[in-house]
């Protein structure tokens, strides 16, 4: 006799692709909260959200590109480039008008970067991996040109919005929430359907009059835009810029996507998974530092945990088949 009393909510949840990731996240949060006594205090949560907003934004951009069937290795360099542009255009004494101009330039640069990536991958049909590797070099070079050494400053009022608390909840949360809402809407539009089609079955999509090239192009532009926002939030957090690219950031964005249960081959998944995956990664990093793991073991432990988390879906698949 089938038991039919499971609530609809749980049934829908059970079908979501990000179920395993969600469970992983809950486990990670529990472990983290045990190790870090003040985990649930606003001070700790807010600090974490502010510090890691760039990663979540990058993970979101990477999700969109990966669903479309590509990959973007240049995101970290776009963050750096935008950050250097913002910092040099502003300076500590800038007024509101100058800040707006700087914002426009920074975001414009990020979007242009996405345009370059998208044009090469979608229209020139370059291989995404090597292309975005090449553009990383270009964007890093631009960053170094704009700001040769770490420094720069921003006006005090510029750093405030990040720490503002509408409705007593800190801004980064609202940013993530808004993007997720936007995604929920977009996913059901033509664009959303075209996106999944372009990533999952590009040839069939093409023959069904889906503008696959334009869709793929747009994913890279969106990724560039989100990377620009990540650069913006990073600059708002630190108040200065640096031409040194954090090499880990790109890798972390890709790992977040995978941890979120999204296949790298494209055509499936969603923004929620990327956000969950990003938070799992953050939890892992927190756990390692709060578990008092000695400094020189930290990277290894994090690597092993990440590999196991990445292997998770694979192991489940294999055991299901048996």
């Amino acid at each position, binding site marked *: 006799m089938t038991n039919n009393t499971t609530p609809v909510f749980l049934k829908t949840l059970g079908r979501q692709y990000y179920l395993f990731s969600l469970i992983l996240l809950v486990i990670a949060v529990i472990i983290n909260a045990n190790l870090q006594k003040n985990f649930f205090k606003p001070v700790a949560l807010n600090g974490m959200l502010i510090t890691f907003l760039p990663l979540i934004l990058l993970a979101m951009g990477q999700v969109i590109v990966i669903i479309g069937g590509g990959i973007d290795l240049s995101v970290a360099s776009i963050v750096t480039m935008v950050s250097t542009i913002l910092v040099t255009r502003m300076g500590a004494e800038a007024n509101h008008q100058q800040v707006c101009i700087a914002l426009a330039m920074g975001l414009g640069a990020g979007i242009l970067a996405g345009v370059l990536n998208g044009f*090469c991958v979608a229209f020139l049909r370059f291989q995404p991996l090597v292309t975005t590797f*090449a553009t990383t*070099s*270009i*964007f890093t*070079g631009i960053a170094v040109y704009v700001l040769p050494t770490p420094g720069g400053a921003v006006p005090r009022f510029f750093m405030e919005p990040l720490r503002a608390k509408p409705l007593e909840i800190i801004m980064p949360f609202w940013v993530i929430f808004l993007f997720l809402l936007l995604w929920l809407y977009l996913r059901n539009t033509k664009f959303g359907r075209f996106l999944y089609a372009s990533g999952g079955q590009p040839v069939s999509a093409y023959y069904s009059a889906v503008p696959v090239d334009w869709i793929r192009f747009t994913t890279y532009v969106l990724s560039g835009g989100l990377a620009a926002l990540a650069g913006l939030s990073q600059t708002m957090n630190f108040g200065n810029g640096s031409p040194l690219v954090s090499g880990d950031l790109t890798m972390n964005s890709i790992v977040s996507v995978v941890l979120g249960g999204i296949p790298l081959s494209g055509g499936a998944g969603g923004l929620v998974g990327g956000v969950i995956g990003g938070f799992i990664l953050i939890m892992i990093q927190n756990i390692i530092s709060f578990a008092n793991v000695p400094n*020189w073991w930290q990277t*290894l432990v994090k690597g092993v945990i*990440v590999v196991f988390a990445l292997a998770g879906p*694979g192991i489940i698949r294999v055991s299901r088949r048996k």
Partner: protein
Amino acid sequence: MLAMLLAVMLFILGGFVQPGFTRFEQAMNILRLAAFLGIIAAGQTLVILSGGEGIDLSIGAMVTLGAILSYGIVNQSDARILPGLLVTLSAGLFIGLINGVGIAYLRIPPLVMTLGMTSVVRGLVYAVTKGELNGGASPLMSAIVVKPLVMGIPGLLFISATVAFLMWVLLERTTYGKHLFSIGVNRVTARLNGVKVNWTIVSTYMLCSMIAAFGGFLFLGYYEHVFLNLGEKYTLPAVAAVVMGGTTLAGGSGSYWGTIAGAIVLVLIESLLTTLQMQDYARQIVYGLVLLVLLAAYGRQKGLRQ
């Protein structure tokens, strides 16, 4: 063979741009760097040929681990070169085994698996050295690798010629090579033809990591000192060299000669840019732009209209 032509053209161009560029010593320098990249990219060639979006992003960290293991074990004594080399190669085989098993049996995408293993290998490096680097290269190592051996040609070039020959034999004359190409073209038909697909995949990744570790050993012989993350900057250029050499990322077609040519081209570009005495940022931008231009020639994929 377009890549080879390009390499020759760039070399001549360099001679015009900067007198002395085509001098024998300079040529040897470039060939040395290219040989080094070429050896590391040999493993990458195998992995990419195996298809299934095969790629190994952990080779950079593997080079670092190999160099540091050799550094610690050889410890400036000639007698310990062999143990050092053996340990280094075994480390490579071990890491490659993990990569291969994850990719072949657990069906983890190669990009993901090797990306994750990069952190693990890097972590191993940190854990093993605890941040301190003790040891040293031995005189014999540097003699073989870096100093001019015969007719002013450094030993490294002979080593890389041997590697090239071995790769040719491996790819063209062994069963493994035939199997590798067949799984690259189509996994299903390969399996139906009796090829042990999983075993081939695993051994490919094992070979790749072993070669990368060997590259680390050579690095030690060349530079005589090590530092953390020394290998990171070789990962993506190795992939670029393979792609530029005509091996498609989808697998199943390509050759090691192409990779060698690709490595030479990449090194030539970097050297050219350095001799032009451009500022750091300009060099980076131009390097990226040149890669894009090369991709226009080599890296374009099939259109959707079939």
